[in-house]
């Protein structure tokens, strides 16, 4: 494109001002939507880290007098401002407490699947031998293995817990990372700088870790943010089908699926946790869109241009 030709001049490539961190923050500040998303996620993370220690008791103690208490009323305390559930437990408190399990499942599953998938993808992409073939067949098998069966198997044999749920969801998501990573590696390993490293005598390990991996990571991170949403929804679908996390543990997905039967007369039971899922995934999506722009030199000007005007 034309702009890249222009950017090719040495004069144009002055070092941007400030450290990397302040530059990123400034770019975040430019994209108001992404900024809101970032702040929201920060709140969610805070809730996930500290919520259960502060509110666990309030969130799990039944109080049948406040059963299905409607939202926007302070009659049952400020924590019930979003209403109360079928056992009269304040929804706000439950959402905050549930954020820990929800985030644990989502983060755990995404991290595990991304890690395993990326490692396998690197191996499958870089080794030309039989190992790569075996890994790809494995991916085929996982892809056509119904995740529900896997869920039932694991949860039957190991009982439904956050850890096991992570295992189930992680396994089903591995092929996504594996295939993407492999495709990227296949392309990157043909690049000139990889050959340059070979010529210098770099070992395979070094080439994979120092030269290929850093290029693949942004793609993996982008997929991971999108997958976050997917995993949260998958978790709630499992709860809906009765094979996910079981009470008295709570996750947002479980709250939505439990509140589903009250949709007609107490909409808030399913609505608020649903909204929490939507807002979190939306925030992640917005942030990942923003990140894609930041990581793409062709598009980065969109965020930086306004800076120079300001």
């Amino acid at each position, binding site marked *: 494109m034309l702009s890249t030709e*222009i950017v090719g001049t*040495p004069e144009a490539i002055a070092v941007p001002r400030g450290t990397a961190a302040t530059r990123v923050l400034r770019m975040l500040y430019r994209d108001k939507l992404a900024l809101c998303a970032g702040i929201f996620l920060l709140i969610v993370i805070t809730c996930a880290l500290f919520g259960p220690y502060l509110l666990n008791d309030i969130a799990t103690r039944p109080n049948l007098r406040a059963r299905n208490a409607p939202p926007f009323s302070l009659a049952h305390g400020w924590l019930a401002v979003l209403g109360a559930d079928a056992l009269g437990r304040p929804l706000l408190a439950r959402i905050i407490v549930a954020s820990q399990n929800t985030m644990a499942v989502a983060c755990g599953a995404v991290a595990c699947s991304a890690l395993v998938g990326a490692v396998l993808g690197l191996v499958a992409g870089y080794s030309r031998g039989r190992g790569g073939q075996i890994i790809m067949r494995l991916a085929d098998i996982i892809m056509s293995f119904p995740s529900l069966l896997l869920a039932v198997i694991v949860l039957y044999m190991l009982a439904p817990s956050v850890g096991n749920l992570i295992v189930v969801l992680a396994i089903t998501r591995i092929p996504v990372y594996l295939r993407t990573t492999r495709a990227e590696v296949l392309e990157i390993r043909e690049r000139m700088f990889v050959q340059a490293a070979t010529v210098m005598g770099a070992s395979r390990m070094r080439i994979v870790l120092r030269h290929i991996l850093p290029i693949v990571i942004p793609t993996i991170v982008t997929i991971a943010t999108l997958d976050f949403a997917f995993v949260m929804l998958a978790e709630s679908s499992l709860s809906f089908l009765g094979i996910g996390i079981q009470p008295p543990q709570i996750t947002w997905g479980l709250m939505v699926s439990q509140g589903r039967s009250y949709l007609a007369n107490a909409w808030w039971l399913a609505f608020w946790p649903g909204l929490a899922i939507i807002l979190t995934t939306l925030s992640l999506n917005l942030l990942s869109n923003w990140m894609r722009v930041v990581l793409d030199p062709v598009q980065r000007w969109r965020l930086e241009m306004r800076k120079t005007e300001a």
Partner: protein
Amino acid sequence: MSEHLIEVRDLVVRFHTAAGPVTAVDGVSWYLDRGETLAILGESGSGKSVSASAVMDLIDIPPGEIARGSVLFEGRDLLKLSREERRRIHGKRIAMIFQDPLAHLNPTYSVGWQISEMMTAHGISRAAAGQRALELLRRVGIPDPEGALGRYPHQFSGGQRQRLMIAMALAMKPDILIADEPTTALDVTVQAEVLALLKELQKETGMGLLLITHDLGVVAEVADRVVVMNAGKVVETGTARDVYHNPAHPYTRRLIGAAPGKGAMHEPVATGEPLLRIENLTKSYGAVEALKGISFDLLPGETVAVVGESGSGKSTLARTLLRLEDASGGRALWKGRDLLAMSTRDMFALRRQIQMVFQDPSQSLNPRMSVFQLISEAWAIHPDILPKARWRERVAELLTQVGLSPDHARRYPHQFSGGQRQRIAIARALALEPDLIVCDEAVSALDVSIQAQVIALLDQLRRDLGIAFLFIAHDLPVVRDFADHVVVMQGGRLVEKGTVRQIFDTPKEPYTRALLAAGLDPDPDVQASRRKTRAAPALALL
């Protein structure tokens, strides 16, 4: 004021980039008349393409912005017309061809369809367009034109693709043809053919030809007038002869002075045991033989150039010697040991002694590593060379040695220009203190002035450090200034080898002679006289 075919007046174009707005062209004016060839000469980043892009409405707005100026075509300012009005002019009245025809042809449609589309987009029926497409293919000399219509761009050679582009551009018999570096990616022999074709077609149709190029030889070969650009400004205009012989602006003088192939030729002095002896080296991909029994010697501290056109196997030779690919047969004796048969462990030690500099430094430097990391990686791989404590010091030394500043160590490759990047690549190669550096087209992607600097640097390293070079290039003038011995390759075969003087002054093989003849001299007068002598056979080639 006379009416020109097209006239650009006081054009200012800005782009918004990471580092703030950049003025790409600043008050550029030029004009083109019917039947005339105007060349815009400039190096990369000079803004030479921008005004043509403005004519063709190819500037992306944003990030681009046309701040001032006008483009007059038949008395109308193109910049003030609506999108649709401009669309009707594009292709039909003003057509354009580009540097890299493979990238600029849509890979998923047949060439027949793409040529026809030029016409159907301007209201010609599909049947008539198909007919004309066939005629055009015949005219630009594509073999088997009927069959070619249904084939896809990747199935043609580089020269043929550029002919396809030309056929497409000329489909509507435009008044103006803009050619943006039309021959840069082509071999010299093909370049000559394409330029001849353009000239000939211009004569037939009387169109105005705007040629954008960085190559003085091309200017000398085809241009009537020339506009020299530097840093977004026009520094000089005039006829091609005037500008070459009486350059007024210092930049132009520098540009002309940097043109390679003028210096004294080396007289080989090195003697002794060969550092590298290649014996009957072969390499085949399935049924295709890329190397057919190559043999030559390379003495310590000596430069051997391997020249040849694309597909001659010269890059395969380099890759095979570096064990990036496995040879099919033959030997390559490094200080007496066959490196093709070495174990991985022995090879690891050998890697220190043979280094490589690649063609495109923007590709061969990992974009995510700083210059310090790039250079010091050599010592991370071979820890016995240098203790970690001395890395910083040594990086600074190396950077100074290749003409960069020690401060540059913290920067990343994308913050450098092409020439600077190639210096970094050279510094990286030097970090291992090698005996031999293989340069695979190490300077071909660089502008002439930069090219000259890098060659000078390499020459100095040879003298100071006694490093031998295997210098792979397609550009003969560069080789002439730098090499001791020359090996000419064609189609995987070694055609001729000899000292640089033997090859350039008394070539024995017809292929070597053709190669030398196809090269363009920056002097318009020289080119004019060459044109006369080869007029007949060049046409016959079409």
